[in-house]
């Protein structure tokens, strides 16, 4: 009776090459004091692809993102349980140098937050303090980072101008080049386009596609169309739980869990 089948189920969905696991999260729970913000979350983030995290406000997706470079450590009374492995190493091991970790796992925030310095200094600051480059090497590194963030052509004649003179979209790309300047392996993005206009948003998305060739990207977004456009895999969080994780093509056309369905169709109230 049944002669052919084309399902969007993972088994028949083409993977983006054969990407290995970059970050492995096992049974991650996180508490703000007595409030449990993450409940036993396990998932694997693949190397050099874009993983999107979606869910309503307060679902734990940003907390999860910040757990990937221990940004939650600075919160008083916070407690983390479970394991997060980056390239097989537990990042919560007491022996881990957190500053070195955050160099490998950079972060871009919701609002562009350039330092009150020149365009050049914004990018040069971190490599300089980390002792990564100086003199003409540093200039080259700045240029290279700005090029990777697709900003160089727009700012090459105003490197000495204040970063605040740039448009919002340019400022966000400046923040991305600042992260790229210290050559991370993973880039975390927490709603990187929520303060940007549609054209700047599409430029950042285009940039993400390019960066994916070299970096592993995890993005938290409230914009489901954005998650669908940019990511290969998507995780849906609700009340601190990871409800569903899988290929974005499946999450947005044929999710398995009723709660995911309700959320992505906008019927979640």
């Amino acid at each position, binding site marked *: *009776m*049944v*002669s*052919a*089948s*084309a*399902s*969007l*189920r993972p088994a028949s969905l083409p993977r983006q090459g054969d990407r290995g696991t970059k970050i492995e999260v096992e049974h991650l729970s996180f508490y703000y004091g007595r409030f449990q913000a993450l409940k036993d979350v396990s998932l694997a983030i693949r190397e050099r692809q874009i993983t999107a995290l979606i869910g309503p406000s307060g679902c734990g997706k940003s907390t999860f993102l910040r757990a990937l470079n221990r940004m939650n450590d600075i919160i008083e009374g916070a407690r983390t349980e479970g394991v997060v492995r980056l390239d097989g190493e537990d990042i919560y091991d007491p022996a881990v140098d957190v500053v070195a970790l955050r160099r490998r796992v950079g972060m871009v925030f919701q609002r562009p937050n350039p330092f009150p310095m020149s365009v050049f200094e914004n990018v040069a600051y971190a490599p300089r303090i980390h002792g990564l480059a100086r003199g003409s090497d540093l200039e080259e590194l700045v240029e290279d980072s700005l090029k990777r963030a697709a900003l160089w052509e727009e700012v090459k004649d105003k490197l000495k101008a204040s970063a605040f003179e740039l448009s919002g979209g340019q400022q966000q790309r400046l923040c991305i080049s600042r992260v790229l300047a210290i050559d991370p392996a993973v880039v975390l993005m927490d709603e990187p386009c929520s303060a940007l206009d549609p054209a700047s948003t599409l430029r950042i998305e285009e940039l993400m596609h390019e960066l994916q060739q070299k970096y592993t990207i995890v993005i938290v977004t409230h914009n*489901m*169309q954005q998650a*669908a456009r940019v990511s290969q895999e998507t995780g849906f969080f609700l009340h601190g739980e990871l409800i569903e994780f899988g290929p974005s093509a499946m999450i*947005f*056309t*044929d*999710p398995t869990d*009723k*709660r*995911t*369905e*309700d959320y*992505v*169709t*906008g*019927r*979640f*109230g």
Partner: protein
Amino acid sequence: MTTPIRHSFDEQLNALQEDVVRMGSMAVQAVDLAVRALAERDLGLCDQVMAVENQIDELNMDIESRAVQLLALQQPMARDLRTIAGVLRIITDIERIGDYAVDTSRQARQLADQPLFKPLVDIPRMANLVQRMLHDALEALVRRDLDLAMAAVRQDDEVDHVYKSLHQDLLAYVQRDPALAAQAFSLLLVGTYLERMADHVTNIGERIWYMETGELKELHE
């Protein structure tokens, strides 16, 4: 958990599907009129087929433009997206069924002034089957009933079976009396139209399956 926070979108999506069912019902009517026009040699019925077909075409365009608008303006996901994708395919199949009804009425018009060399048996039987298949498919769409969708699709076997019998029957007539060839050819064409209509109903069943399960598969060989 599910609160009607997309009330206006839900209304538009429901209205779209109601119109698909309305369009499908018109196609059922067009098939009925066309085959009756042939059996009763009634040119008035031929005109009615054209009138119904015009309404089907109008509805087809209207549904398509509203579906595209919903895609653009509401950015539907998951089940909603599959519903709209399914609707866009289903209306194409219904529209084709309407076209075949018109083709049938054209043959009826050609044959209206000559006596039929045999009483019509297989053609009305095929037409009844096609109408029932389409009716079942539309009901399966409304109720999202996969069993009924499968049942509609399965009736295609019987349509094919009757079509083969019609083919053999007409061939035997023509072999006995080659002068009957022209009329036999017209009747065979009508049989082919009905057989194709049943295939379009099968497509509709597959779209309903996809809307409900997210799985694209052939329901019938």
